Each structure stands twice: as C-alpha cells, then as structure tokens.
C-alpha cells in the first residue's frame, strides 16, 4: 500500500543543513497497522510527512496505493492527498468551526453536495461517538474528544491510508487507550492501512502489527512487533522495550560474577521467553522430571502483546554439568526463546 524507496531529506536552515532522513526504505501492506518509533528528533515526523508529501523528500520515491507521489504536480498531489487521512498530536482542528463543520471540511474540499456531506458527517459522528457534541466548538472539548473529531475528519473522504503523527502523545493513558481502541476498530472495519508514529513503546505494543525503529534518520530495525519485542537487536530498541517490559537483569545479578563458560561446579542461569501457546506448556516441570537437575526461578513476568501472551522467566539450574547441558539442549527443542545469561559458582548463591 505504501512504499518508500531510498528517502533522503535534507533541511537547509540558517544554522546549517540538517540531514533528517538518510536513506529510508519501508513497505507497508494493505490493512496493516505499522508503527514507527524513535526518540525526539529521530526524524519520525519528517518521515510520516513524506508519505503524504507535506514534506517533499530531497531524494527517493514515495508510492501510495500504486501511485507514485514524488512524480506528481501540485494539483495532482492535492487530489491524491484526499485519499490519505492524517491526524496530529495537537489535533489541528479549526477553532472557528463546530465539530460538525470540522468534519464537513474535507468533504467541502472534495466538492460534495450538502446532502451528501450531512449524511456522511452524521455517520462519522456516530462512528467516533460524538453525535451529542456536533454543535460544540473545539474549545469546549477534551483532548480525547478533539482527537475523535480529528479521526472523523481524517476518515471523511474514505481514505486508503491513515497517518498518525504522535496522535496520542498529548493524551493521558486512559484516553490514549480509548483512542487506540478506536483506531484498531477502524482498521478492522474498513481494512484501513494505518501508519503510526510514536515515542511510546506502549502504543506500539497495544495496536501495531509491524514496527520500525528509527534513529538519526535511519531505520535501524524493523519487523513484526512480537519478534522485535522478543528478540530486540539494537540497544535503542532494547531501551524502548525495557520501558515497558523489564529486559534488564534483576539487581542482585550485579553482586555476582557471571562466567560465560561452564566450570565443573557451576550453575546455569537462563532467560526463557514464552510466546503465545508455549506459555501454557509446562516446560520447566517436564525438564525437571527428565533430567537430574533442580531449577529455581529468580524472576518472572507475564505480559500481553495485544492478545498474545508473552512471558519472561529467569531461572537458575543446578546439577551435574552434563545434565545441565542436556537440559539446555532439551529446552532448545521447545518453542521458546533462550538466552544463556551465564554460569555462576554454585556457592555464590544460596541455592542448589
């Protein structure tokens, strides 16, 4: 639905040039909710604004719904933009228009008749749950309500794509949740492709299927949300994830020395991550039954990525070195993520 090829964006300003995007390649499929996460200044807004050409890339090709936007003139581009909805962090509603008139605005631009506009607006008001607010002005609405108006306005011309630039960043957690629910609903109902920019991993975890991590104008990592969460590669990604899922080792590990190789008399410390159905499998107990080892759980956490359960366990295994290695091989055959944290001397901890 959307492809970006080798996008570069250079801003010329009074205090020098800023290379905001450095060769970005992305492809978003129809019906996906695609998240782009990065810290402030990473180039997220620039990237999303290149998709509807609010910002024209210095280099590269933008294609939306089979149409190459980078080759269009102003007039043609305006027509294409009507098929791309956008919502903003600060809502950007017209303060001089009522809720109804704000939603009618894009329909007026599309030269629709009064009757069509009326029908469409009333329907949209219902969709976003604001029918009773139609004659109010934006100044009389809460942040969440304003964003609902923004969403209704963005959907008015039945776009193929919805771009969200930090759409929930100005909202409290509760309101954020309800707006994300609404976006998810719309995505399902209309098979609408959504590109969502955020600096909050929670938002990605809540609704995205795919995620790309942007840093310094480059995509440093991308993939399915579940994969990125369970196997983050870059430090930036790990940091984002640790903001909601604790991926760091618990504090008491600071006090013990970990060896990377086993010695005759050491315990094995593992981090196991379980995804989806594997959380229901009694892996630990069957391991203990099969091999002559003991296991103690040092840390445990269970979380959900949308509807998929996702658990983390840090376990310490003790026993004969040979049994430990057998147990490790056995775990590797199961459907779970394994990370060997290291080996500790048996007497270093009061177990086993």
């Amino acid at each position, binding site marked *: 639905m959307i492809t970006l090829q080798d996008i570069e964006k250079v801003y010329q300003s009074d205090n020098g040039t800023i290379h905001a995007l450095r060769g970005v390649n992305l492809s978003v499929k129809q019906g996906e909710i695609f998240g782009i996460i990065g810290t402030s200044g990473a180039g997220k807004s620039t990237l999303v604004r290149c998709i*509807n050409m*609010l910002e024209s890339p210095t280099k590269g090709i933008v294609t939306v719904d089979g149409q190459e936007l980078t080759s269009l003139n102003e007039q043609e581009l*305006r*027509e*294409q*933009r*009507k098929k*791309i909805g*956008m919502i*903003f962090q*600060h809502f*950007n*509603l*017209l*303060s*001089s*228009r009522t809720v109804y008139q704000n939603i009618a*605005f*894009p329909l*007026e*631009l*599309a030269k629709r008749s009064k009757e069509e506009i009326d029908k469409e607006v009333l329907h949209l008001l219902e969709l976003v749950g604001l029918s009773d607010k139609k004659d109010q*002005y*934006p*100044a009389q609405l809460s942040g969440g309500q304003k964003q609902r108006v923004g969403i209704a*306005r963005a959907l008015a*011309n039945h776009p193929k794509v919805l*771009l969200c630039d930090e759409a929930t960043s100005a909202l409290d957690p509760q309101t954020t949740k309800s707006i994300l629910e609404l976006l998810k609903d719309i995505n399902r109902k209309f098979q609408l492709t959504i590109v969502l920019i955020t600096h909050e991993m929670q938002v990605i975890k809540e609704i995205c299927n795919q995620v790309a991590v942007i840093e310094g104008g480059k995509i440093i990592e991308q993939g399915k949300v579940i994969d990125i969460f369970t196997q983050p590669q870059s430090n930036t990604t790990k940091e984002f994830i640790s903001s909601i899922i604790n991926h760091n080792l618990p504090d008491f590990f600071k006090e013990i020395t970990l060896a990377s190789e086993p010695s005759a008399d050491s315990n094995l410390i593992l981090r196991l991550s379980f995804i989806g159905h594997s959380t229901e499998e009694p892996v630990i107990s069957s391991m203990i039954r099969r091999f002559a080892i003991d296991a103690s759980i040092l840390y445990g956490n269970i979380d959900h990525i949308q509807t998929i359960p996702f658990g983390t366990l840090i376990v310490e295994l003790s026993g004969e070195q040979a049994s430990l290695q057998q147990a490790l091989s056995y775990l590797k055959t199961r459907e779970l993520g394994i990370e060997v944290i290291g080996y500790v001397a048996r007497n270093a901890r009061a177990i086993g």
Partner: protein
Amino acid sequence: MSQEMLVLLAKSLWETTYMVAVSSFISALLGIPLGIILVTTNKGHILENAPLNRILGAIVNATRSTPFIILMVAIIPVTRLLVGTSIGTNAAIVPLSIAAIPFVARIVESALKEVDYGVIEAAQAMGASPREIITKVLIPESLPAIVLGLTLTIISLIGYSAMAGAIGGGGLGDLAIRYGYQRFRADIMLITVVILIAQVQIVQSTGDYISNRLNKK
C-alpha cells in the same frame, strides 16, 4: 446655539462619517488582500515568494513611516489625478485611504500569523489549495482579530480625517479649527470634541462586540 450652527454641525458630522466610511472601505478592500499576500509569501508559507514579500514589505513600511500630514501634501498630484481636485471631502479620501491601506495590511498580517501553522498543514493534508486555505482557514480563523484591527483602523481614520479636514477636507476637524479655534467659539470646540469621542466609543464597542461574538476560542 443658532439654527445655522446646528446645520453646520450636522453637515460636518456627515462629512466626517462619509470620509471615514469610504476610506475605511477602500483600505479594507485593498489592505486585506495585501496583508494576506504579506503572510502567505513569507518563507515556508503556502505561497512563498521572497522577492515579492520583500518589495511589498518595503512599500508598506515606507508609507507607514511617512507622517500623515506630509503624505497628504506629497500625494496632492495623485489626488488631483483621481478626483480632479485636491480640496474637499472626496479629495481627502485619497490620502486617508493611502495611509490606511498599509495599516490594515500590517494588522491583517499579524492577525493571520496568529493562526497555528498546524491547522494550515492539516488543510494541506486534506488536499486544500492555497486559495481554499486562505478563504476557508486563514480568514475564518483570524476573523475576530481582523475585526478588532479594522476597528482600530476606523478609529485612526476618525483622527486622521480631522487632520485632513484642517487643510480643506471638511468635516468635524475643519469645523473645530475654523469656528472653535479661529473664531474663539468654545462651545463649538467642545461639541465637536464630544462628538468625536462619542464616535470613537461607538466604533470601539461595536467592534469589540462583533469580535467577541465571532471568537469561539
């Protein structure tokens, strides 16, 4: 006060109102578009055009920094060309309008600059053309501020019209000078001052009221 004086007063009041009304109308007609051009041709705005912006800005500043009394005399040839004479109410309308156009332009410019650029971008993202952005976003969003600016313009024009009157334009200023000052008629002086103050008050309150009604923020 004699019947004759009352007629004179009524005539002067009408002349002032006429001068102010016509020059307000002309200056709004030309000053508003000029203000819109000044904003939209700015760097990074919807019709960016640096040379045009700079030239218009310079003209506006030059006109605004010329004292009205000098402007009025300096453009006498233009006034003659336009209305055939340099004396009288119609003649006074020319310098009044020329002085007020850049004033309105700057006021409209600052009103439009107050419109959050995010709203303009939202309109662009919906496929609005520059013309649609001007008529459907910039003007409606800044209308309360524009109304206040025009109110200020009218009030300034009431003051300037008294000055224009002093050099043959007619109106209340002319009356105050000829009778109140030159013939020592303190009553005439007092009454013209009271009328001028009343006019300003009425214009200001009306302007405030309309602006408030329009403001939905």
